[in-house]
């Protein structure tokens, strides 16, 4: 068994893939955005409920690979109850860890650090980032409300 694959597909990742948390449509969301990866057909929607500056609820739905699904699931747990700025700051740290540019931030990520193994698979970084870009787009869209067109994000890193 390959050690790098063990690191990529840790049991927490496989568990979140199989039993994604906060996997539901949110009817009363403040904002939402879709993330799409046309290359592999991954597609998910992130819903956020904002209570002032705080993300009081977050959910997602969609289909994708284990990495993108687990990342979305872990993200919902990580940003619930956080302020917008805190959520964006976690995204920045997360991005540095999955791209391998700031591996030292992994410990600060809590259970999200399970996705650190992605840094050894550059082709999978966009899978891990898909939900996060959608979250970011949903926050931007809320700023620009009322949104005229659906927002889709395609991560290019």
């Amino acid at each position, binding site marked *: 068994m390959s050690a*790098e694959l063990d690191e990529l597909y840790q049991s927490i990742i*496989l568990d979140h893939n*199989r039993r994604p948390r906060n996997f539901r449509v949110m009817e009363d969301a403040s904002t939402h955005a879709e993330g799409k990866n046309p290359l592999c*057909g991954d597609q998910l929607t992130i819903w956020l409920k904002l209570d002032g500056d705080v993300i009081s609820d977050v959910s997602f739905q969609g289909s994708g690979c284990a990495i993108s699904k687990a990342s979305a699931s872990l993200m919902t747990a990580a940003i619930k109850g956080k302020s917008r700025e805190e959520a964006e700051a976690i995204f920045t740290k997360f991005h540095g860890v999955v791209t391998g540019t700031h591996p030292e931030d992994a410990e600060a990520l809590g259970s999200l650090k399970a996705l650190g193994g992605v840094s050894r698979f550059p082709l*999978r970084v966009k899978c891990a980032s898909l939900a996060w870009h959608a979250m970011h787009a949903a926050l931007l869209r809320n700023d620009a409300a009322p949104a005229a067109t659906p927002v889709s994000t395609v991560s290019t890193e």
Partner: protein
Amino acid sequence: MRTAGAGFRNLRADFPLLAANPGLVYLDSAATSQKPGVVLDALRTYYETVNANPHRGAYKLSGAATEAYHGARAEIARFLGAADVDSLLFTRGTTEAVNLLATGWGVPHVHRGDRIVVTRLEHHANFVPWQQLARAVGAEFRICELTKDGRVDLDQLRLLVTANTKVVAFGHVSNALGTINDVREIVKIAHAIGAVAFCDGAQGAPHLRVAFDDLGVDAYAFSGHKMLGPMGIGGVIVRRRVLETMHPYQFGGDMIEFVFDGDTTWNVPPHKFEAGTPNVEGAVGLAAAVQYLDALGMDAVRAHEVALTRYAMEQLAAIEGLQLYGPHEADARSGVVSFNLDDIHPHDLSTMLDVDGVCVRAGHHCAQPLMRAIHQSATVRASFYVYNTEADVDALVESLQKAKTRFHAHA
């Protein structure tokens, strides 16, 4: 290593990339093939001994480049069974060839109320140009559906091809399922009402003997890089009576005859459809590739692939939870097997196979309308070519078994 198909030697040594990577199991030839040393040598020799801009110079070297370019055209036309050498138009590949047909032939010939028919098997390059042509001119765009095992439903096609149908565009071989279409029957259906029949041979020309003059199609498009040639070269052979009615779709360079202040006249085909400095390197490389395929013999290439595909289908079918898509018989396919394993996303499978040195394609294979029809967002595709052996299939199967174990360990 064992190799499938009697009398076909293991060819890895002919392919520098494969020879340099003994552990690599390359199963993505439907995306692009590896290149034999003779093709790489031809590119180098061309630049070292011939390079100049063809057609333009009145000096010997330019004459040699012109000769190399047209010599390559003749070689490729011969390989594809077209006696009319100048009816072979070079393009960057199949995608550009279909766009050339949809624009250069489609715009002057397809009008509001006309019908364009394609099949559910098409990859985007032979789907979207026709869809967009239909939108631009107000024509009706219809898609012929498939039978349960992934073949074009010819009975439905007969109903869809009505008197107002101007073109039937279809692939020779499906890149996603490997299905080989009945070209002659589709041509018969199109020609019965006077429609033209355009065949996308991106996945056909590398694997099957193409006898253009006997096939009956009005145009046959192909890509060089999928048939052992370089990237950025391909073309389309167009039946003369159709070619004569096509408009150029790019302007500049050799395609021009005389330019006046108010209008311009065109050079004759094939130059009329080859604007700008041509890809002489690509043409020369592709000519070397078809000579290599010729030396193997396309019948032997086909026999090798059928044997390998049959072996792969048997081995894969034995993996519990593996779902194969497409025709059930190996000889109804080109060397392509498309599948999913349990609920493991193809992208995850591809990463796990990659760690074992097994290169497969995971995704929708640029055939989203087809993926929707088989109710999958993506599949894993293993595609074979002349250099693959049964050992490659064994490596694929072993790696899939490992991936299955890994994925279900935490269930």
